[in-house]
């Protein structure tokens, strides 16, 4: 039985099913309370968690998102049932941390991860096309590095308990969400009272959705960056058929739910400064490719005991703190009294994106260890 399921999830229908389930669930999470065109966003939700913990103090984006917790723990459950849980790590952890930091800085220049880029497009946000173009360019650059021998070296099997650190951290976050302790007057845990951070689906619904997606994605190896990479590298359309299913199903769901509002400016939690949408996602796409997978995939790998993926996740959460504390994250377009104010990056944000591209290029160029 388990073997048959494993074969199914490794098949094209397995990956399409996973993408389709995300495409159904994300618009529903939006209907039940999550921010617009943000039914699921790995980067945004990790940013909200960083805010809840006080790693940044942007009051409108602070919440412990149960979806992220569910992604990790759903993958843990799947890995345990199918005997794939395996503690491993030690493949250039500090580099992976840095890649996570810059992946988040890039993601917050665009205001979303590749998952949300697809969900934004499925909701009619045409700026997402620019972001997705940036993602493809970033992955393409990463593939050039891979072809020229870039790698971060081998991971090693390690103590069983080490693989449990990220899953248990998620259990801890869930307890903080449920009990909402206040650690000092005016201190964390913070929960937004307005803005995107205050918009949330009910906790158990969000957790359940995350667990289901985490389970399916661990089995099918769903990865929005691997999807693009495999097409560029090997003309392999396996993973991208899952992303295609996500996009098409989410689009249909948004039509059914009345959540499809096509346009280029003033889209929800998005900006129309095209150059920085593009370059932000070039940076994020490159960082994800150098780290071996999209931010969702890093969560699923963390859930099955991969400490290197766990370090990348922690890098993204710290990166969100840095992005907001140093005003690197983009401001969304806003419309007041019918007047559109185009959002985008501060000068600091622009410098950070360029710096990130330079750092990632240096990582890609200099870390070419012969492994044969």
């Amino acid at each position: 039985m388990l073997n048959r399921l494993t074969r199914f999830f490794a098949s094209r229908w397995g990956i399409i099913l996973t993408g389709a389930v995300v495409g159904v669930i994300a618009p529903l999470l939006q209907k039940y309370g999550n921010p617009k065109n943000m039914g699921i966003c790995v980067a945004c939700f990790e940013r909200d968690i960083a805010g809840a913990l006080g790693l940044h103090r942007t009051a409108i984006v602070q919440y412990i998102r149960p979806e992220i917790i569910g992604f990790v723990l759903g993958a843990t459950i799947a890995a345990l049932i199918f005997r794939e849980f395996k503690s491993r790590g030690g493949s250039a952890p500090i580099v992976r941390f840095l890649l996570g930091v810059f992946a988040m800085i890039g993601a917050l220049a665009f205001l979303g991860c590749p998952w949300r880029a697809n969900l934004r497009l499925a909701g009619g946000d045409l700026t997402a096309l620019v972001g997705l173009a940036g993602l493809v360019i970033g992955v393409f650059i990463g593939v050039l590095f891979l072809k020229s021998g870039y790698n971060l070296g081998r991971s090693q099997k390690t103590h069983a308990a080490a693989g449990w650190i990220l899953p248990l951290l998620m259990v801890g976050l869930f307890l903080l969400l449920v009990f909402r302790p206040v650690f000092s007057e005016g201190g964390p845990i913070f929960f937004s009272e307005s803005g995107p951070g205050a918009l949330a689906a009910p906790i158990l619904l969000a957790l359940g959705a995350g667990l289901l997606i985490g389970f399916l994605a661990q089995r099918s190896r769903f990865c929005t960056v691997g999807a693009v990479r495999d097409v560029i590298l090997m003309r392999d359309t396996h993973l991208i058929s899952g992303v295609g299913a996500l996009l098409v199903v989410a689009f249909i769901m948004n039509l059914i739910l009345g959540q499809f509002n096509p346009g280029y400016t003033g889209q929800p939690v998005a900006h129309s400064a095209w150059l920085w949408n593009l370059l932000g996602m070039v940076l994020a796409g490159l960082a994800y490719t150098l780290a071996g997978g999209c931010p969702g995939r890093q969560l699923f790998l963390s859930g099955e005991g991969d400490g290197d993926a766990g370090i990348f996740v922690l890098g993204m959460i710290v990166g969100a703190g840095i992005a907001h504390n140093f005003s690197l994250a983009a401001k969304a377009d806003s419309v007041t009294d019918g007047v559109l104010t185009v959002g985008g990056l501060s000068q600091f944000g622009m410098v950070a994106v360029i710096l990130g591209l330079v750092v990632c290029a240096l990582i890609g160029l200099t870390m070419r260890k012969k492994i044969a």
Partner: protein
Amino acid sequence: MTKIVDARGLSCPQPVMLANDAIREGEFPIEVLVDTVTSRENVLRMAKSKGLQVEFVPDGDGFKLTITK
């Protein structure tokens, strides 16, 4: 002589890239060592898409795939 590709502990997509490089060299059989089911599936899918025969057995903490024409 059997060509051995040790892809254990490597991140995606390197196991597939290394196996693909070995296939391009054209000397069979090729043995590919991997340490996760994900890598096993990925190498299997790539080799089968090229019309090659692939079998695998558990090997230590991972798997040994044998690719033949």
